[in-house]
């Protein structure tokens, strides 16, 4: 059994160069969507079947009146990717079992098994999975499964010039992340925090992050909102069962009542 591997993305040193996006597309032969001209330097928009990596540009430029020396924290940048959750929502709902855990404990969609029902898209809390119209199936980051099998580093981590994206054994990455966040907090970055390092979010993430603000600022659900779809199974079925039972009872009353009416009328 290979060692459990992961990505540690340190957003504090991301410079938004998008080398990860380019390397990912190059390796995975993703043509990409037509470029968009969005806020900041974002021309990808979101993760989908053509973008397994997406560099987010989060605009925190203060109002001009509030700009003073020392509050120049204007941009947050983050190279987003599938989180390879320990308890993956997509995998939970997939009816075809096309979504599996690999020997590296990463989450992988088998394109030859998927039938394109898209239930995983409704379940993924990170909006990671996209539907490939041409292939008729869904797809997302594979963690460069083919490269892993050849003992190669995933393309995005290999290309990252600042080592914002680090690849390695998950236990080693946890240690590095702990040291880094402690150093940042010691420097006064009180909001610096690890996301997905522990099991508070989907049992822990294979691709975890060092964030410089709250998860919501980066478009990530916080621990209170990171819930599995199955949370509604029992309540949903119970509600349906009770309503059906009351419905049958109502039908019985209507049918019997009217039978009595018509018999009296006859």
């Amino acid at each position, binding site marked *: 059994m290979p060692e459990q591997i992961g990505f540690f993305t340190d957003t504090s040193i991301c410079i938004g160069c998008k080398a990860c996006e380019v390397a990912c597309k190059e390796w995975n032969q993703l043509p990409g969507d037509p470029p968009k001209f969005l806020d900041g330097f974002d021309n990808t928009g979101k993760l989908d079947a053509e973008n397994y990596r997406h560099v987010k540009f989060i605009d925190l430029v203060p109002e001009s009146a509030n700009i003073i020396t020392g509050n120049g924290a204007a941009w947050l940048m983050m190279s987003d990717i599938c989180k390879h959750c320990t308890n993956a929502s997509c995998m939970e709902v997939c009816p*075809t*079992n096309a979504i599996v855990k690999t020997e590296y404990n990463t989450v992988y969609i088998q394109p030859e*098994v998927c039938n394109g029902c898209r*239930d995983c898209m409704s379940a993924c809390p990170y909006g990671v999975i996209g539907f490939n119209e041409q292939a008729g199936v869904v797809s997302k980051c594979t963690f460069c499964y083919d490269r892993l099998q050849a003992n190669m580093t995933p393309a995005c981590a290999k290309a990252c010039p600042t080592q914002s994206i680090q690849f390695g054994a998950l236990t080693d990455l946890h240690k590095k992340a702990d040291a880094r966040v402690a150093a940042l907090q010691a420097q006064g970055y009180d909001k610096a925090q690890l996301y997905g390092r522990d099991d508070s979010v989907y049992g822990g993430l294979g691709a975890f992050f060092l964030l410089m603000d709250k998860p919501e600022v980066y478009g990530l659900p916080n621990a209170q909102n990171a819930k599995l779809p199955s949370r509604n199974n029992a309540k*949903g079925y119970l509600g*349906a069962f009770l*309503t059906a039972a009351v*419905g049958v009872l109502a039908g019985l009353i*209507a049918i019997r009542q009217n039978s009595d*009416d018509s018999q009296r009328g006859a």
Partner: protein
Amino acid sequence: MAEHFVQPPHWEVWITLYFFLAGIAGGSYTLATMLRLWGSARDEATARIAFMWAFPLAVVCGALLTIDLGKPLRFWHMLVNTTPGSLGLNFKVWSPISLGSWALLLFSLFAFVSFLEVMTKRGNERNVSGAMVVWNVLGSIVALFLASYTGVVLSVSNQPVWSDSYAIGGLFVASALSASAAFLAFMSRFRSDDAIPTESRLGLADSYFVILELIMIAAFFVTLSNAGELWRETAMPWLIGWILILATFIPSLWTLTGRARGRALAASRAVAGTGTGALIVIVGVLILRFVVIYSAQF
């Protein structure tokens, strides 16, 4: 407060129609069984109509689900695991789509046998064997599941609105029963004079189902409000949809008030009997499916 960062699955027209017709197929089968069990002998004509429609509707449901897939020829992957080295049946009790796929298959079997039974029988006399009644009862349990699980599919997700309410399964089964009662009342007009007396029973049943549906809509809104997501349903154009849905309840509720004033059969037949009231109810349920499905995605 719930926060969502998901992408929509783009479940649109085919899924909306499937959710709608699965409700009518399941609801019709259930109502037919109820008419057989508790109705008078004269209700057999309408039960026969329901059993005749349930199977073709189930076939259409299967076709709609298949068309919506990105790979329609892989529809059987819902039932069979084709993962290399893991060949076997797919049955995930915690995945409503997995359960629903089996339910649709099973319901089709129940509906097919009932279809054969009524097609091979002459006239509308009620000479049903005990075994067939048991078959109908078991089929109705699957039918009710079919009518309701579609709502649970939506709830078991991370989409806004859908995952914020666990009342959608209940809402869908209540509305499915209402639409089915209206559908049978409407269809019986064209099929047989023997079926017409049952219209009033179905009209009254529909009124009760509409009250149940109203309660479930209230539950749906309360759960959304608790999650801080009610604004999505009260925003345009969905608000118009909800107003239309509530407007379609008027004929059914009017039937009920007519009964309360003592004009029992006359009132209920005034609405159900014209066919217009039944059509209004059916359209209302279609709008309900449309609004619930689309409002979470756009």
